[in-house]
């Protein structure tokens, strides 16, 4: 049986070709990673043209930074960080449309500290439902209803899987502020999803 290809060895071989400036190697890099990077950019940038611009910017910065790439991370991980960064930069040149305050999306309480609207159990099988594309649509929509500064932290931490410090650096926030925003973004998203996902809503 043939041995599994070693992805790190493949990365190294491609890097050698990229560093010699071989045109076909650049094309190979774009074709093998471009689709995944575009999916990442689309999460931050709902306008397709913006997402494509971010991917292009990301590849161009990656090409410029090739000599500095030490190979301690996988190429795919390295490119992922670069496209996240490029997407955030692009976002900063877009905006700022007026948006809802996060406070309006957080749970409200009675004077004695009980929830104003008691939390009901959610359907247990949502991920196995046939209407998966509807579910996907719903989650995307609700994430995009979050105020941007909160939505971006939620995407970076919960979806892109960056840690608190990396997120803090990219967003220009303290680690404490990242934690507060992440928690509030999750609370707000939970509030937005609850009417659709609670058991009685079926």
């Amino acid at each position, binding site marked *: 049986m043939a041995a599994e290809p070693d992805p790190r060895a493949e990365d190294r071989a491609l890097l050698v070709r990229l560093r010699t400036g071989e045109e076909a190697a650049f*094309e190979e890099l774009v074709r093998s990673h471009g689709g995944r990077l575009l999916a990442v950019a689309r999460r931050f940038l709902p306008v397709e043209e913006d997402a494509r611009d971010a991917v292009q910017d990301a*590849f161009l910065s990656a090409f410029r930074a090739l000599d500095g790439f030490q190979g301690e991370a996988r190429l795919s991980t390295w490119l992922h960080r670069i496209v996240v960064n490029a997407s955030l930069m692009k976002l900063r040149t877009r905006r700022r449309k007026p948006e809802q305050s996060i406070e309006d999306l957080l749970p409200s*309480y009675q004077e004695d500290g*009980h*929830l104003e609207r008691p939390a*009901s*159990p959610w359907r247990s099988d949502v991920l196995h439902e046939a209407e998966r594309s509807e579910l996907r649509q719903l989650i995307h929509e609700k994430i995009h209803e979050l105020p941007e500064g909160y939505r971006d932290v939620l995407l970076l931490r*919960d979806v892109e899987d960056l840690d608190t410090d990396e997120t803090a650096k990219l967003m220009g926030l303290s680690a404490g502020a990242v934690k507060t925003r992440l928690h509030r973004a*999750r609370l707000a998203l*939970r509030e937005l999803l609850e009417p659709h996902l609670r058991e009685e809503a079926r």
Partner: protein
Amino acid sequence: MTMSCREFVEFLMAYLDDELESRERQVFEGHIEDCPQCVNYLDSYRETVRLGREICTEDESVPSDVPEPLVNAILSARRES
């Protein structure tokens, strides 16, 4: 010592990240035993995080093709730079 539902919600993430002191943790877990609504809240908070992660990343598991015009734009921008 007890905690209100408001405090429960406030400390939820710290609890899940295992960042509570052992005394705070005890109070938090005491509230879970007494308050079925907060159990629902905790479950749906976890589900929110899970859904965000799984739904948003599944479009990556089937790598989409790169649109041809984008490939060309990137490669020609490189040659010009």
